[in-house]
């Protein structure tokens, strides 16, 4: 494979594809692949419940929240959950979006306690409200910091882009 090409779909589809589709049911906006990872897009209202269902399902058993990231797409904020199971070799990516004018998603702290600081960080840096989170006080930033430095709209005065477009 030369640099620049990438497979849209892995050689063997994920064995859990059908089971995930079954659980997500009507909530799935799309189910596809990004490199070798199975990727599920859902509306934000359904995400916490769905995560709980995926964790408790014995065939999937996504007990390990690998990562929770927030991505700023200018008009929308996207939350990406990377899940893994330790007793099955399964992995899954869940994505959900919230509009910039009304930035909230439900908290998943009830599903994995490990979501706690990731969500506080997302609130700190991106101003995304994780609805239902018990304590969204500043984690990485100091008290009274103004603005959301993770967002693209936040201006870093000293930042010089060398080869940017």
């Amino acid at each position, binding site marked *: 494979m030369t640099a620049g090409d990438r497979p849209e779909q892995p050689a063997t589809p994920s064995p859990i594809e059908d089971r995930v589709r079954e659980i997500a049911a009507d909530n799935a906006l799309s189910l596809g692949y990004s490199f070798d990872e199975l990727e599920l897009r859902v509306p934000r209202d359904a995400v916490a419940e769905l995560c709980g269902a995926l964790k408790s399902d014995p065939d999937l058993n996504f007990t390990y929240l690998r990562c929770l990231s927030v991505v700023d797409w200018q008009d929308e904020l996207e939350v990406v959950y*990377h899940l893994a199971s330790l007793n099955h070799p399964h992995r899954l990516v869940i994505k959900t979006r919230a509009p910039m004018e009304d930035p909230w998603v439900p908290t998943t702290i009830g599903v994995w306690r490990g979501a706690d600081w990731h969500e506080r960080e997302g609130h700190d840096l991106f101003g995304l409200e994780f609805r239902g989170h018990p304590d969204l006080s500043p984690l*990485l930033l100091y008290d009274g910091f103004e603005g959301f430095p993770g967002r693209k709209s936040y201006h870093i005065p000293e930042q010089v882009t060398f080869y940017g477009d």
Partner: protein
Amino acid sequence: MATDAGMTASVSRDPMTEQAELRINMGPQHPATHGVFRMVLTLDGERIVDVTPHIGYLHRGSERLAEGENFQQITTLFDRLDYVANFNNEWVYVRAVEKAMGVEVPPRAEHIRLILSELNRIASHLLFYGTYGLDIGAMNPVMIGFRDRERIQHIFEGVTGARMMHNYFRIGGVKEDLPDGFTPAVRALLDQLRSGYEEARATLTESEIFIERTAGVGAIPPDDLLDYGVTGPVLRAAGIDYDVRKADPYSIYEELDFRAPTGQHGDCYDRYMVRMLEIEQSIAIVDQALTRLPDGPVMGRVPRIIRPPQGDVYVHGENPRGDLGVYLVSSGGTVTPYRLKIRGPSFCNLMALADMVRGMYLADATVILGSLDIILGEVDR
């Protein structure tokens, strides 16, 4: 009321019961916090009722800074996350870009990366060994740990020119080939490490005082550890066999003969033992990799300007502290990443601290914090 260097306290008295609860602020400049970490402890006598950790003192905004730098430059930011395991950090990042671009890494470069990363794991665990001894009150381990760690860093300096902050891994390979005499130098180093390991074992592992201080301290149920996303030696000490090198093998780990040591009780002593056993395993890994180190180029075919196609990748690797993950979003055609999220193992491991110290004695707090082996550069990013 000031009690100790870096500690300040306030007393609140309940008039109904006349029982006093003491709030102690520990850090951010306290030596036992291993960096700029602060926790507020609520005490009932000697017992810890609750703890509130405060982080962010070293927050440099690495993720946002990365959005303004081109892909080759970002390696330097990863050096500065977990600054005692630089190679391991660089490796995960370059693998993420390589996956996004579909770059093949030549076998020699894979071996060099693996040898340096495993040596770095040993160096990191030796640093833990030394400083953990200090946390407990033992002065000898730090001499042994730092002596051997310095020998490893001498090798690193010979290869990269720097003791730390190497910036040696490149997207598609490594910066340059190994210097002459690398293999015999590392073989001699491994012999020194083996004898140092025996010395270390006699000094701390079998010390009765050390065992008294650490055995049965700071254990929480394995399911809780998983729930918090705790990984690395802390998770394996509780008997959960999760090592990225085994669970999701990368590089040439599958072809090498090693095991991921696990503990049984999940207490501070087991965490210490798992790290010590990992030193043994890493020595064995380096030994095998040196034997099969192939000749050939050290850089793959990589375009001069790195522009990954549109899309996102998540790549992780086993860092000395646990599962380090990099989530890389590329908008396609640009020379800077659109978004880079770093999942630091120390960051996730630290979340479980409150559960571990609750109900323990104040003197155990530093023992438990030390056993997590956090590096604040990676917690705060």
